Every structure is written in structure tokens, then in C-alpha cells.
């Protein structure tokens, strides 16, 4: 059976996201960090959402966190062929920022709010790495 198609998004479209993708290639989850407030933000922005200034950098995060919200996507759409039902979660990372991703190692029905997660890597087309999560029991 053919692998499902997982379109690779164009990088660096909205704002400068190259460090995120370079991090993913190196197996690291790299997110935007505001040097003035000492807080992370995700998705990336052109300025700090805390100060409005561009005193930003990119830092690796642990990828460890807790499930804040969860759903099971059951309706077809682009890039979803062969992936349904699909576990989609909002993860609250230890670094104080949330990220939306998939849980790769459980039946979607078994994913619950409050479960601890760790970083895992999913593969898009052409072997491009994309951050996802696995449950830590």
C-alpha cells in the first residue's frame, strides 16, 4: 500500500521560520523566545507578543509537556489520506508555551487531557521531519 501523501509546507512564508525547520532537520524542536520577557511564543511572530519588539531568538525546547486539549479528526482533507481517525492535541510544554500536534503511539480514543508527552518525529513527504508527540506513561 502506498504511503499517504503528507505535503511539505513552503518554509519561511509567514515570517522567518528557517530556524524551526533547521531544528527539525537536526531532530530538535526550536521555538521563538522573547529575550526581554523571557517567554516563548508559538506559532512564530514578526515581533514578541509580550513586548511588540523584535528582540527575539530561537531556542531549543525539551518537547516535554502535558496534553491541554485533544480531539480526534475524523473528516477527510488534504494530507489526511490514510491517517484517519487522527489524534490532534494541544500540548502545554514545560517551557510555558502551547503547540498543536499529533500523538503517534496511541489509539486516538486512548489519548486524554493531562497525560504527559515527549517529543516524537513524524515524517512528511520526502522524509521531511515534523514535530509530534508520544505518551509518557
Amino acid at each position, binding site marked *: 500500500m502506498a504511503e499517504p501523501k503528507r*505535503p511539505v509546507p513552503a518554509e519561511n512564508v509567514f515570517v522567518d521560520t528557517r530556524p524551526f525547520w533547521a531544528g527539525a532537520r537536526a531532530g530538535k524542536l526550536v521555538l521563538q523566545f522573547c529575550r526581554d520577557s523571557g517567554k516563548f511564543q*508559538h506559532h512564530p511572530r514578526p515581533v514578541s507578543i509580550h513586548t511588540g519588539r523584535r528582540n527575539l531568538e530561537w531556542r531549543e525546547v525539551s518537547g516535554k509537556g502535558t496534553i491541554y486539549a485533544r*480531539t480526534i479528526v*475524523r*473528516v477527510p482533507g488534504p*494530507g489526511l489520506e490514510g491517517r484517519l481517525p487522527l489524534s490532534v492535541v494541544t500540548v502545554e510544554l514545560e517551557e510555558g*508555551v502551547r503547540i498543536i500536534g499529533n500523538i503517534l503511539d496511541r489509539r*486516538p480514543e486512548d489519548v486524554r487531557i493531562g497525560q504527559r508527552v515527549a517529543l516524537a518525529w513524524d515524517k512528511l513527504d520526502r522524509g521531511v521531519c*515534523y514535530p509530534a508527540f508520544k505518551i509518557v506513561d
Partner: protein
Amino acid sequence: MKQHDIVIAGYSETKIDQKTGKSAYELGGEAFDLLLQSTGVPKRAIDGLSVNAAISEACNPFFAVFMCDALGLTPSWLNLSGLGGCSSLGGVARAASAIRDGQCEVAVVLGADALGTFNRSMFGAWRGEFLEPTGALGPPAAFGLLMSRYEHQFGLKYEALGKIAITQREHALLNDNACPKLRKPLTMQEYLSSRMIADPLRLLDCVMVCEGANAVLVTSEAKARALGLKKMAYITGYAELTNFGGDDPLTDITLSGHSQIASRVFERAGRKPDDIRMFHPYDDFTIAVVMQLEEYGFAPRGKGCDYVLATDLSFKGKLPLNTGGGQISAGQPGLAGGGLNLVEAVRQMFGEGGARQVADPKNALVTGIGMIPYGRNWSVNTALILEQ
């Protein structure tokens, strides 16, 4: 300070349907023609126009200008209202300001959209890189996440969500403009067994996207009387907030901007929740109705489902809810959707609700919701109080 100088003195609405093959201009023209017919206001008297940004015209930054050309209007005040499901209420508020500022005297606030004919949505931004790879493609996934968190914090009673869907469906049965496909009775069993879309979100928690248009006429009370208009609803309160929690990565997503604007709109109108006769909340999903019942103070926080189960929300009831069926049961005419419940509120206040007329429709609270951001609650929040 309470202001009672600006009114909505007319409304119109096309039938809502799917696969009409019509454009936003065609539908907008129908709504405009109906508005002129129902008010008797001559076209030359209209010198202001606010047009909802439409998904079917999303590639066209000149949509409002083109609409003027399509309608043969020469307004001295023109506004393209890009607030998503808040565009109609935002358009009304901006029209009221423009009238007070002397920019125009008689404004039409027009919503028209036709996604089934042209779907030109291209939201771009962060969606491509940070959302689409996760499969959380559209509003249902975002609302599935939101509902799951609400359920985790407060519990969810599915019979309450079902009651919202059923109550609004019964209202749609009495609304000749509602999408024909939705004008069928609905039972709790059908609701509960409708398929999961994005757990715990069911199919019958969701709107169905349709095509359609609606319009209201906004002017001063004095001008309305000079035009010979007898029926009017006074705009006594409006409040708006965008991107609530936008600088807090750990915001509580079970609270929305409505929690912030509720006290403002009540204060401006000199009203409190108990005074409100009819509630016409933006209803893209049933959970949005539950949350707004809490945020506008009809129910305590986390108790919206209990309130729904304990309250008659029909047009005959204690707090009539979206008496035209709302978007959930009349159909969501794209980004004209924010005008659907507004038009119904005005219709009721004019005593033109027909078989679903609310007794003593002395006032109404109408709300809007626009856009869903990354991992948070909705973006734009608007609330409008109208008084007879």
C-alpha cells in the same frame, strides 16, 4: 452614556440555500432590492455602505467598491468590514459612528457570500507551516479541541447541546428563508447518534455552509422619521474585542473575548442579563452558544449546559434563542452569517416574526464571533443590544 439616536430602520434577507450558482453580487443585489422594497427608501437616499468581506470574494481587495458599482450606489461613506462573523455587527457600529460624525445619513450594512459558487479562502499566515501538517485543518478541529478542554474543566452535557440544535431546528421549520435541506424536524436520538466530526464535536453541533445575503438599514431616528419609516430598533449598546488572550501563551481557552465585552455592552445599554428578552448569539457550533450563555451572565461559569436543560429557549420561552433557526439550522451564508441572527432580531422587534413571533420583543442581545486563532478561542468578539 446611553445613546438612543441611531436606529436600525429596515432589514432584508434572501433565502439561504446551497448550490445556487449565484455570486455574492447577485445575492447582495437581491438583498438590496428587498431592502428598498420593504422600507420604501429610494436608492438616492442611501449615502453609506458597509460590505462584509466575503470568502467568495476573498481575492478581491476592492469588493466593497465593486459592490457599489454593482448596486449603482455613490456613497459618501464606504466600509469593507473584515471581521469574519462579526462583520455585520461591526458594520452597524461603524455605520452608527459615521452617521454621528456626519459622513453619511443613511447606511446599508450588507452581507453577501457564496462559497458554494466561488471558494476563494486562502488564509495563509501560520496555517500552512504550523497547522496543516497536524491535520487540524478547519474550524471543526479547533472546536473539537476547545470542547475537549471545556469538558475537562466543567463537564459537557450532550443533551444540552442537542437541545440547542433541536430548539433552533424547530425555529428553522418556521422560517421560510432557512435552507430547505435543514427544514426537517430533529430528535435527540438523531442528534446523539450523528457522527463524530472532531470528538467530542458531532455533525449536528456544526453549521452547514450555504449561500445567501442580508442587509440592515442604519440611520438616525430623526432621518428614519423623515423617510417615513415607522418601525425601528434603537442601537443602545455595542462592544467589540479582538485577539483576547493574544499575548498569553497559556491563556484559558474556555474564556473568550465575550467575557470581557459583556459588562461593557450591558453598561452602555443600561441593561443587565435578566432584562434581555431575546438572545441571538453567533452560533457556528453549539458549544459557542453554551459558552456565551455563561459569558453574558445568563448562566454561571461552567453551568451553561444546566441552564440550557432548565430553560425554555423556544420563541415562546423565557429566553428565546436564535428564533430564525440561527446559522446552525437556517444555514450559514458564509461571511454574511454574522448578519443572519441580527436580521432575525430586528424582524422580531418589528413584530414580523410570523409563526415564530416572540411576545413583547422589547429588546435583543445579538453577538458575533470571527476567526479562530492557533490553539486559542475565537478572535473577534462583538455584542449589540437593540431596544424597541
